[in-house]
């Protein structure tokens, strides 16, 4: 076969690899993007962060600060969930056995 001609199987495998790479990128980006959204929100509406406006705030206002909750959710996802998914996607690409 001429080297300029790509077989249909090669093209399918390549496009599958590209799609998998894109999915890895998106899964890895979800956590940091959520963290970024929380930080942007904190600067856009600083009055929703008790650290910036501490006067007259009670216990729950210190515990629950919405923009910081968003940052926390993003961090939890990035640390606890995303790495395992990426690992499994890459294992899938290599054709490894399930991680279990």
């Amino acid at each position, binding site marked *: 076969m001429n080297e300029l001609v790509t077989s249909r199987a090669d093209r399918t495998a390549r496009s599958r690899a590209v799609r998998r790479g894109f*999915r890895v990128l*998106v*899964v890895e980006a*979800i*956590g940091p993007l*959520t963290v970024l959204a929380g930080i942007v929100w904190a600067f856009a509406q600083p009055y929703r962060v008790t650290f910036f406006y501490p006067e007259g705030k009670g*216990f*729950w*206002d210190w515990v*629950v600060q*919405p923009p910081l*909750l*968003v940052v*926390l*959710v*993003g961090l*939890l*996802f990035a640390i606890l*969930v*995303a790495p*395992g*998914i990426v690992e*499994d*996607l890459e294992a*899938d690409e290599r054709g490894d056995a*399930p*991680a*279990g």
Partner: protein
Amino acid sequence: MLPRAEIAHWLFAAGFLFFALVLLAEAIVGPEVFRRRRWRAYLWPSLALFAGVWLWVIAIFSTFSTLHLLAHSAWAEAATAAGAVQLAVVRGRLRSPYWSLVTAGALFVSGAPFLVHEQNGWLFSRSAFLHHLIGWTLVAAALLPVGAALRPRRAIWAYGFAVTWIAIAVMLFTDRDIAPIFGHLSDLAGGGAR
């Protein structure tokens, strides 16, 4: 020491956001890869059950109004039922895709109390606006699991379900006990709390 209603809503918003990110990740990589680790497969049913338990707790403390007591109980029931059925699906006890109709029912049963127990118009206050918006969002989103039951192979239902919960989280984060919506706030809003 009990938190204000808006504080409880923001905590739920954070929980729903995490739930949504998990669902979004599952939609992106597909259930085969996502469920390769057992704990991940159990994540969404467990989160739904956890939300159900906390909604029961809130129902217990919603003694200030019968309407709120009933509404929170309906949400608790819906979340518990959806979580329990999904748990059985993940465990392999239930195999038919039609079991996602239970999730559809849970979304509808969750949306209806929002609409029924909000007696004021959309622009009465931010809280009233959010009741209408969240209610209609959940009722409309009930079609997604119906789609998943009829056409289980299409990823659009999973993406739609995840995006719905991101939207619900955003709506709950915008909630305040008494606040205007688009510059409107009825003089009657808040009752004695203002």
